[in-house]
């Protein structure tokens, strides 16, 4: 562990639980989300979705819908420019979606037509009047069906494709055969991981307003304004600069709001056609029935150990059920492979990952995309091996744990790792040694670990601009304006980024105004909120801008006090001064005022940028952590009660402890849902549970006691040593709970989620 403390962190703003800057507005109901907005003359949009999983569109008759009084526009695919889009711009053949279906529909819920009317009821009625004739095609609803010989081709229009595999990813490290030959124990298991919903509380919404001169403004519930701007412009056939995207408050995203979506396009397209603002708000039923979801993945993992627990090799094969379109599936395919090799040192590793089209609703990015599945498998196999080898599961992990400086050849290098310390700490906090050895009947204790990226390096969006950017304007009243496309979707980046800027300029958080995000005001570009990238990447862009501000103000103070060139200029407590002679200084406001005067009226505005360069293929920095779950199982009902979760995690320097705790506790909620209660019930491509009554996310009563400890490392690439805390924490709960369930019942879950029924079958309490 690199635990050198940056001297700057001794100051006041970093490491403090600054309350969220947006919290008062949210607590009083004043915060505006997209669905809350209205404009004069606004029309209400509704979508017609496909009721069949795979079909050719023979004819669409919109005449009845169009003639319904109050309907102002009805559009189908043929009315649009028919330009495909997708997040993986670097590989155009992966851009496989049309805003509205053209020739074919590929899943139940595929968008076929859209209506704009003077009120939502009329729009809905009109949608019901559109008549579509389909020629139904054979459909496939699992990876196995999609890969079977003679399976129907879901994207027969993409020439590069021979079957239903849209993209694959191979990793080969070391001599696999030779390594397995040295193994004393080889595990070979197949796991079935299921799809779950982001279940953000705010359903997706968009409001488009036509502007003068053929331009357009879009307010949308997104994590990635820049991506929406670019892809909307390309699908409309407009220059990027004609499209302005503004992100209002966003009610959660978790990866589910990081693409251009059909309603964004339809709102914009119909706004331009009608000359009136158009708004869409999705229903929860639409969200659950047709929305993006975490990938269901089938993973076969073969892993070899020496008798003493030393890992020797791993052969990891993953088949991702991508549903009808790529969405962020290619990234999930990559990450699943990268994370199959993380946490422990594998002298030989092979990954074969396949992203497979099916006629299910498309999966996309969801908190950890690819990593929760890969690590559920890795961690469960570590627990199986510990049992087989009669080694304590934590000791087995300690023996193989990655440390600072470790690398996966050609994939990644670990610049800071507090994994060993996390394992030791979680063992100590949970009383592992004593408790685990003597669990009472029907109680169990289990462990799961994780690692995650602090933003991605691979430029799949093919942005020509920096990965992160910001503008900082310093004013003569001592205030500062930070403008960035980095997007707060509830995780708190508006607060964290202000803390980083405040620390860097030595001013208070209250003196910083933030604009995030508005693509016409904020510099190009920032890829937005995904992959736990904002703190590290935008934080670094802010440090770059702050350095430029400080260079300018240092000149002023240096000149005013005729400071010897060897003096360091400090920025703290709202002042700019000679570090060793603090009396030689002026207020930040005065310094800015003097700079403006000295520069004949120019304003002090700078831009900061960050792009990870020469950082491998994956990420500049990894988080690590370990979690222990304690559970009780009712032997008669099979119901699992999670009693306590203990976590030790390394997110580098903690910038805001309260925010990190919030990420941890929210992750546990999501992890518990993943392992115990959440599952899409599907029949022939149709999602049957489409309300929160039967799609069960954990409630306040389902939450366990939570204890945690941050293992602070110093990440050299991170701002003030910080790295991610947003997604990795969502990984360990599932394997930890599953391990605890095994210890309590003997049921080893290789097919998530764990249900009372599965437990009772395993314990012989329930017969076929």
């Amino acid at each position, binding site marked *: 562990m690199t635990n050198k403390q940056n001297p700057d962190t001794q100051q006041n703003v970093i490491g403090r639980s600054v309350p969220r800057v947006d919290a008062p*507005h949210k607590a009083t109901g004043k915060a505006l989300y997209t669905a809350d907005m209205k404009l004069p003359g606004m029309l209400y949009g509704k979508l017609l979705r496909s009721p069949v999983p795979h079909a050719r569109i023979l004819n669409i008759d919109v005449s009845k819908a169009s003639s319904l009084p109050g309907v102002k526009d009805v559009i189908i695919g043929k009315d649009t420019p028919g330009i495909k889009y997708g997040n993986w711009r670097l590989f155009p053949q992966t851009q496989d979606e049309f805003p509205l279906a053209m020739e074919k529909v590929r899943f139940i819920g595929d968008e076929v037509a859209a209506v704009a009317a003077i009120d939502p009821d009329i729009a809905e009625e009109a949608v019901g009047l559109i008549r579509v004739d389909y020629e139904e095609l054979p459909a496939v609803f699992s990876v196995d069906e999609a890969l079977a010989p003679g399976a129907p081709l879901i994207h027969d229009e993409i020439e590069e494709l021979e079957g239903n595999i849209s993209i694959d990813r191979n990793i080969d490290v070391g001599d696999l055969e030779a390594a397995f030959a040295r193994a004393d124990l080889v595990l070979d298991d197949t796991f079935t991981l299921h799809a779950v919903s982001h279940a953000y509380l705010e359903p997706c919404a968009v409001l488009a307003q036509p502007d003068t001169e053929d331009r357009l403004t879009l307010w949308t519930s997104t994590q990635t304004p820049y991506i929406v701007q670019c892809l909307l412009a390309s699908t409309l056939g407009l220059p990027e600069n004609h499209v302005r995207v503004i992100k209002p408050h966003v009610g959660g995203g978790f990866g589910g709001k990081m693409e251009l979506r059909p309603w964004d396009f339809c709102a914009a397209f119909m706004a331009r056609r009608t000359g009136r603002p158009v708004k869409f708000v999705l229903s929860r039923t639409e969200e659950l029935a047709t929305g993006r979801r975490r990938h269901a993945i089938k993973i076969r993992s073969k892993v070899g150990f020496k008798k003493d627990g030393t890992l020797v090799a791993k052969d990891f094969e993953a088949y991702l059920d991508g549903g009808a379109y790529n969405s962020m599936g290619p990234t999930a395919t990559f990450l699943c492979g990268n994370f199959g090799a993380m946490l422990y040192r594998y002298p030989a590793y092979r990954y074969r990952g396949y992203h497979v089209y099916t006629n299910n609703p498309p999966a996309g990015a969801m908190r950890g995309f690819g990593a929760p599945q890969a690590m559920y498998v890795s961690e469960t196999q570590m627990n199986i091996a510990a049992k087989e080898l009669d080694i304590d599961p934590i000791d087995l992990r300690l023996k193989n744990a990655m440390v600072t400086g470790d690398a996966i050849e050609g994939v990644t290098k670990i610049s800071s790792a507090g994994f060993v310390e996390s394992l030791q700490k979680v063992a100590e906090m949970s009383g592992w040694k004593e408790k685990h050895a003597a669990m009472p009947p029907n109680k169990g204790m289990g462990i799961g670990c994780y690692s995650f990226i602090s933003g991605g390096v691979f430029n799949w969006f093919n942005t020509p601009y920096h990965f992160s950017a910001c503008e900082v304007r310093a004013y003569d009243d001592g205030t500062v304006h930070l403008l960035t496309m980095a997007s707060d979707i509830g995780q708190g980046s508006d607060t964290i980024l202000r803390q980083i800027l405040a620390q860097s300029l030595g001013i208070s958080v209250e003196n910083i105004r933030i604009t995030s995000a508005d693509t016409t005001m904020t510099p190009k570009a920032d890829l937005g909120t995904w992959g736990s990238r904002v703190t590290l990447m935008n934080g670094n862009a802010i440090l770059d801008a702050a350095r430029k501000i400080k260079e300018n103000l240092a000149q002023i103070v240096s000149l005013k006090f005729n400071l010897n060139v060897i003096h360091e200029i400090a920025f703290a407590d709202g002042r700019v001064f000679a570090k060793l002679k603090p009396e030689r200084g002026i207020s930040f406001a005065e310094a800015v005022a003097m700079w403006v005067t000295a520069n004949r009226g120019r304003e002090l505005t700078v831009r900061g940028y960050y792009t990870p360069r020469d950082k491998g293929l994956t990420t500049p920095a990894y988080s690590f952590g370990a979690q222990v779950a304690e559970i009780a199982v009712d032997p008669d009902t099979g119901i699992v009660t999670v009693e306590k979760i203990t976590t030790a995690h390394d997110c580098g320097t903690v910038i805001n402890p309260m925010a990190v705790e919030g990420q941890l506790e929210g992750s546990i909620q999501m992890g518990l849902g993943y392992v115990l209660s959440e599952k899409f019930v599907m029949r022939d491509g149709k999602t049957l549970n489409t309300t929160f009554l039967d799609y069960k996310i954990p*409630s306040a009563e389902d939450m366990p006691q939570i204890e945690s400890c941050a293992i602070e490392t110093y990440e050299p690439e991170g701002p003030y040593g910080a790295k991610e805390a947003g997604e990795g924490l969502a990984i360990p709960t599932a394997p930890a709970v599953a391990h605890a369930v095994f210890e309590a019942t003997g049921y080893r879950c290789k097919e998530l989620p764990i249900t009372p029924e599965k437990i009772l079958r395993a314990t012989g309490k329930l017969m076929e």
Partner: protein
Amino acid sequence: MSKVNITLHVNGDTYSIAVEPWRTLAEVLREDLNLIGTKIGCETGDCGACTVLINGKSVTSCLSLAIESDGKEITTIEGLSTQGDTLHPIQEAFIEEGAIQCGYCTPGMILSAKYLLDRIPEPTESQIRQALSGNLCRCTGYNSIVKAVIAASKKIKLKKPLQN
């Protein structure tokens, strides 16, 4: 079907309006009265984001017809702090305890907490969890919210004038 004239007393203001009989209270609050603090998360009464108080009792306003509230007293999140910009102790506690992330569940969560604290000024942790179990949150994991309700209970107790 023709509109129905109703009178709603919302946050101390009286609104005489005509609404279609099938409009939900949530819709009318948001669309007709522009009280957008009341959020719609599911429209099936499962998530609690639309919680308001009707005559002091918590109700999911997406399942309640506006005409059912004719003549009744309604409190939405906008009406919680009665004196200008002063925050209600529950709002203060939610901000201080980190109980707000994306904020979409917050108005409903705060009103459910108010309904609880009005009935049980010093609830146990399990009473709080039970009282909030109809309000879903996907960001916080609820623990900071529970902490906030406990803190709010203490704040309210301190603010009350001493008896005898």
